[in-house]
């Protein structure tokens, strides 16, 4: 027999209210997904993946160049961000002393907090301006810089989680430190590091602002690394704010593709990490 005292009534009411908050938050995600599937999925066709954008004002065409452009930019970004982040994380975890480590961690956090638009205008000044033109390369640099902090943090966290006893076992056998790190410590932390890297890539894959003044955009194929290139997020933005219905339709399709990609990588990486392990927070 439950007593309907005031505190119990308040208890059940608050259970309901807080539950409603949580359900609402999840509901938003489901709504976003559902709506994009509905609007974007219906606009999707093979031509989206294979054709270039149609001339302005005409309907039809696709975003093949943007897809390739995004891939190129992400490739370069990974080539820059992952090595610096990974090796930097190794330094923090295995080699550095307290004060130096503090400085580097602090700076990494600082870098992580820089708004993406600011990164864009800085890379404009440092890369685009001297080169004299927009380029895929500049876009890759901007995104690469954004990838560094998360890569450092997740590498360091997973390396630190490897027990000291493993390192000691290797060192006691006479192996040099770098070999112990390479053959014992890193493999033990590898799963987490890879998951962290995947989350990192997923995060920058959706970034638009840093590309606005670096890779810019391109109606056609861009060859090599020195030409401006279309990228998926920038296309979505341009088409969404544009005046043509057909552009809006394509923006939905592109949004659907981008979101699916990003969420797929996220879900895979998080599941691979399994319960209870550190998930780097953007």
């Amino acid at each position: 027999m439950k007593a309907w005292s005031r505190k119990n009534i308040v208890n059940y009411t608050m259970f309901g209210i807080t539950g409603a908050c949580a359900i609402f938050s999840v509901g938003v995600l489901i709504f976003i997904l559902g709506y994009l599937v509905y609007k974007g999925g219906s606009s999707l066709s093979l031509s989206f993946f294979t054709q270039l954008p149609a001339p302005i004002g005409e309907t039809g065409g696709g975003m093949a160049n943007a897809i390739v452009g995004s891939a190129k930019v992400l490739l370069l970004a990974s080539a820059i961000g992952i090595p610096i982040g990974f090796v930097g994380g190794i330094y923090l975890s295995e080699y550095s002393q307290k004060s130096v480590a503090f400085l580097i961690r602090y700076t990494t956090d600082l870098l992580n907090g820089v708004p993406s638009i600011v990164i864009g205008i800085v890379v404009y000044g440092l890369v685009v301006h001297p080169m004299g033109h927009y380029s895929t390369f500049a876009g890759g640099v901007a995104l690469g810089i954004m990838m560094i902090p998360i890569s450092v943090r997740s590498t360091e966290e997973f390396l630190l989680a490897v027990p000291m006893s493993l390192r000691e076992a290797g060192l006691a056998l006479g192996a040099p430190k770098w070999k112990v790190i390479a053959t014992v410590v890193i493999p033990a932390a590898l799963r987490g590091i890879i998951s962290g890297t995947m989350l990192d890539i997923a995060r920058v894959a959706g970034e638009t602002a840093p590309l606005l003044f670096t890779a810019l955009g391109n109606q056609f194929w861009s060859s090599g690394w020195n030409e401006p290139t279309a990228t998926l997020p920038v296309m979505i933005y341009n088409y969404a704010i544009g005046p043509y219905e057909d552009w809006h339709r394509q923006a939905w399709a592109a949004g659907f593709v981008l979101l699916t990609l990003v969420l797929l990588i996220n879900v895979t990486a998080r599941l691979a990490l399994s319960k209870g392990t550190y998930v780097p927070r953007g």
Partner: protein
Amino acid sequence: MSSVPLAGKGALPSGRARAFYRRLRAGEELAYTIAATAAASILVITALIVIELYSQSALSRSKFGWSFLGTSVWDPVAGTFGALPFIYGTVITSIFALLIAIPLGLGSAIFLSEMAPARISNALTFLIELLAAVPSVVYGLLGIFVLVPFLRETLVPGLIKPALGSLPVFHGPFYGVSVFTAGLVLSIMIVPFIISVSREVLLAVARDQREASLALGASKWQTVWRVVLPNAFTGIVGSIFLALARALGETMAVTMVIGNTPQIKASLLAPGYTIAAVIANEFGEASGDLYRSALIQLGLVLFGVTFVINGMARILILTTRKGAHA
């Protein structure tokens, strides 16, 4: 710098031993150098960013000084640049977003950490954290084509105007794009951060505190409200600062729904502009060094503010984490 002490190798012939040592040590030195270089490059890159921001804004800074922050005129044609409308827009949208996201986020976090059974809590948390992964431009897409029409045709004329239209904050015509719309979109974007960090912080509150309260006849909610929340307070405030820093720097979703008008109005229903949005819109076409320099000065301001707030967030969250383990 740490070097591995080598075991005694007296048994090897000395010539070979020295070569061995040299190779080994070279490997060590090389490995260390590579690692240190990577770490140093982080410092270099960050320094470059700060230097670039500072030096490229020099033109504007020398012309306007810091009264830049107080001037409300933004006229590229006349060459007058004032940051006030953008600072206002940034602050207003962020605060409005927080006003919605804090109760929503805290309520969800409390449910997930205190009230719900573990499996439901983990599953819901997983889904909510995915919200943080949705790209800004996708939020913008939904903002333009779903939220704006909904507000313009249904919510504002149907609910807001009749109920609150007399208040100055809801005064004036509403075209769909506005500070209000941007604030709503921002609130959904920052909610996952509040939920994530707050939930962790709440879970970290020591079990024996809860038991002491329950044993005195308190209900679960009373325990949460009077014991757990006060214990977790610092960390929760930290999560709010984190969310605020995110909101301040948010670009794409905001510029797609805020109306991009540099003005300062009391009404939330009026269009506005934020620092990030104006940089995104005007930097590409900024003609003239002063114009571009002014935009970079805005970028410097934004950088500075997010730096400070992120710093405070980190201190608050670290303090809680340490306290919980004590």
